[in-house]
């Protein structure tokens, strides 16, 4: 089990689940969870490639740490926006945000 392939398969599954979540969910918070899945699948890729790919330096590890930090920042901003939307229109459903169209 301890091979590059199994990690890549897990990452691919997470990635697909993330995309599925973003496309099908109507709840803004659930969409954000899908985006987190995509980011984490990329993290698994980075770590797995670094561990099994015979790389000399730790670029992949560094990259994934930066991604974790950025994911937190992005989630903070996104949730603040969702809360503000909830205050104004009383819903976090993306279908209810339909003022701008055409």
């Amino acid at each position, binding site marked *: 089990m301890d091979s590059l392939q199994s990690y890549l398969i897990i990452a691919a599954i997470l990635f697909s689940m993330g995309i599925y979540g973003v496309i099908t969910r109507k709840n803004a918070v659930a969409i954000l969870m899908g985006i987190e899945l995509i980011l984490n699948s990329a993290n698994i890729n980075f770590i797995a490639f670094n561990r099994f790919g015979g790389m000399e330096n730790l670029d992949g590890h560094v990259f994934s740490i930066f991604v974790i930090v950025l994911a937190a920042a992005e989630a903070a901003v996104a949730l603040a926006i969702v809360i503000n939307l909830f205050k104004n229109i009383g819903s976090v459903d993306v279908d209810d945000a339909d*003022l701008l169209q055409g």
Partner: protein
Amino acid sequence: MSNLSSLSFYIPELIIIIAILLVIVLDVIPVCKKYTFPLSLGAILLASVFLWQSYGESHGLFMGMISIDPFSHFFKMIFLLSTFSIILISRYEKQLDSNYSAEYNALLLIVLLGMFLMSSSINLIMIYLSIELVSIPSYILAGMLKNDKESNEASLKYVIFGSFASGLMLFGLSILYGITGSTDIGVVTAALQAIEYPLSIYFPLILILVGFGYKISMVPFHFWTPDVYEGAPTPITAFLSVAPKAAGFAILIRVFYTMFTLEGSVSATLPLTNINWPTLIAVASAVTMTLGNLLAVQQEDVKRLLAYSTISHVGFMLMAFAIISPDAVRAIMLYLFIYLFMNLSAFYMAIFASNKLNAHHINDWDGLSRKNPVLCAFMALTLISLTGLPPTAGFVGKFYIFAELFKHQQFYWLAVVAILNSVVSLYYYFKIIKSMYLVDVEGEVNKIEAHPVVNWSIILFSAQNILFFIYWEPLIGFIEKSINLWSG
């Protein structure tokens, strides 16, 4: 270059970082709150002085994380100019709450810093970080009007599309890292050229294109553009339509010319063997300009119309990007520079109309030429320039792009699509001119004067459309000097 010795080449960015911190600190002290506005403008001016002084130097900084070269300097000047003008004009925009002006300026400066890094990053980590550094404050800026439902919705759509696109790009970067074993784009290039299975590059290439395409609002990643542009405060719309787009093109050119061409430099003429991305770009370009134009035709809201028109302009710039040659890069840079002036002046006019007349709809602009003939004349000039007719700078920009297409004898069909699109764009730009000049309003008409800053911003930015039509040779000379990317 080591970290400590890099700092002396990093002064413009350091000035901006210090200004961001100072603005945030001063905002907390009630007495000093009013100094944040001059401080932000002063920092930008100071940064431009230092930037101008170091023009022509070419170094890799911070152990190969970012590079400074004439190419990034050219784009940094575009960013400084647009940010300066946006910060200045935002003060006279009625929609924005002046209580939050310090936060607003700090966020704009953070975006400016992000764009600086975006135009000069040469490492996959920096590419991702800088794109996020531009995106995250932009989400907040789009939702700056906290109690306005449209602004809320704009920022929600922006944050969802933006983080989705950058997530996809990140996955592409991780695959690219796996294929090549490095995050330095110089090493990545060498590894890609020696690759055994070239087809495996397609997957990361397309995912990376999603991330960049979202930043420049290339179809099919454009869905956020009209909604965000309509909902966001108008100065932010003007800003987003110019500066981050230029940054997106800077990083697009740098990454694609370095990583995905045979020669691996800006003087390249061929794509990587078996990787036919120019055709991909050509198709995307045709779809982008056609969709942008056709949807703009039916718009009644001025900001939304201008949003679709920016999409079609991106299609034009991508047209030159489909040709791999240094001259095509020159055409894109020239177009971006001219586009900065025409787009900003058009949006400033929209700011004037919404401030003084509360006019958002095209019909609200009826008879505007009788209320303020001077600004309307300049607006008409801008619109002619956006269409690309002589005697304006828009014509020069379009001319260079078409010349590139014909010179390389590639994609003739794309040129036909582009010419047809220019005709379509004539219709909707002249809809605004018609509304300003030909539709008469009944009754007494009062003259409406704009605030001097808004007034002169429109006039100065719009006058460039004539200036660069008569006298574009120094500009072209400067751009040719700037097509010089740092490599290894």
